[in-house]
């Protein structure tokens, strides 16, 4: 890649920052060059984020209609999926899936909820308050 070809597409995914790439000058000599973004890369990042967003919104609707506990939408909201949440909390995936059921979630003890609180970086009280909502 030539220095002139280093993309400067001001991608929002970079949050106003620049990233370092390596590119060659006219003499073919390598140097570091800042890039403000690349459309192809930003498209890929946004597509992945949009998919997580879609899953989160879907799960949130499930929660509002009483079919799901708030856990599933929180999981996607904090950019996790079932295997990742299982690794972070140290709970089995089947247990996590069980906790997606509103009736099960309402009966969860503080110890289990505390694990989720740490995983999402939320106060435990917030997860407890969801147990009383929409009951």
């Amino acid at each position, binding site marked *: 890649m030539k220095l002139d070809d280093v993309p400067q597409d001001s991608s929002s995914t970079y949050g106003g920052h*620049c*990233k370092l790439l390596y590119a060659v000058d006219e003499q073919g000599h390598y140097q570091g060059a800042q890039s403000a973004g690349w459309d192809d890369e930003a498209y890929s990042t946004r597509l992945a984020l949009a998919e997580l967003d879609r899953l989160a919104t879907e799960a949130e609707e499930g929660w509002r209609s009483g079919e799901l506990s708030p856990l599933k939408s929180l999981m996607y909201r904090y950019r996790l999926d079932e295997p990742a949440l299982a690794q972070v909390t140290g709970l089995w995936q089947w247990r996590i899936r069980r906790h997606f059921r509103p009736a099960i979630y309402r009966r969860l003890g503080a110890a289990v909820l505390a694990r989720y609180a740490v995983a999402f970086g939320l106060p435990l009280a917030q997860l407890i308050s969801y147990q009383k909502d929409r009951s």
Partner: protein
Amino acid sequence: MSSFQHQQSAHCESGVLASLLTHAGLPMSEPMAFGLASGLAFAYLPIVKIGGMPLIAYRMPPRHLIKTLSKRLGARMHSRTFGDQEQGRRALDELLDAGRLAGLQSSVFWLPYFPPEMRFHFNAHNLLAYGREGNEYLISDPVFETPMRCAAEDLHKARFAKGALAAKGLMYWFDEVPQEQDWSRLVRQSVLSTTRILDGMPLPWIGIRGIQHLARRIAGLDPAQAKYNRLYLTHIVRMQEEIGTGGAGFRFMYASFLQEAGELLGEDSLQEASRSLTDIGDDWRQFASACVRASRSKGEQPDFVGIAASLDAIAGRERVLMRELGAWSRRRG
């Protein structure tokens, strides 16, 4: 501590490594650190899932660079993980108060200075702490343009985030780095090791065979699964470009290493290899663009076979290059 100079890098681990070595009195560029640690690779790991997609790596696994290079340089490196989080916090403070630099492994998700759209649960991010002021740490995060500050609570959470590749507060620093090095031997040894990783593993997912495997997977995509195909192809692009690879999945960074090593040793064949790897890197970038074009196109049928063929061609060119480099490194050892 005040003499520490922040240097922006393309990749976190090679950047931290270059900074630590330079600060310890052995000046080293990022590409040089990456190359001498034999960082270049390719791996397609269908068992390790990231958001339901296979892990595609263009480099060696986390921690490889630091371990390999400190061994090759004969440098004394200390590293510690902590079962007790409070102890990890104290140990970092003590090291910083003694005026040392500390390399830290941490999660990207919990670092507040990262752009929101880049915050994913990746636990093997490397950064340097070079001091503290009040309740804030002074951070040199290699992928950013300038030094950063991070509240103690946030850094603590990032260091002890759980999950895959959990850092457990990992902290590392150099005690002693020998200044006298046999650069010719180091370059040969590291290049030879890279050729073996890329073109000499008996596994179908590693190295050039891994690239060919990925090409076959692309060729075999079912056109009826448009949504999955889109996510799959852009997933490849993200693995290749998004998280600090210096462009084209580390190919440009390694080409820069070959050039620097060629100048250092006065070896034209390395310069030649650098030029051809630059061309291969350009092919990788075009491959990425083709993946995105295929994902963007609505209506018309994407040409998966064509994309796969271009990837196969890349694999072929990398194999030729690795054979040449392998022959070079064995010639006078």
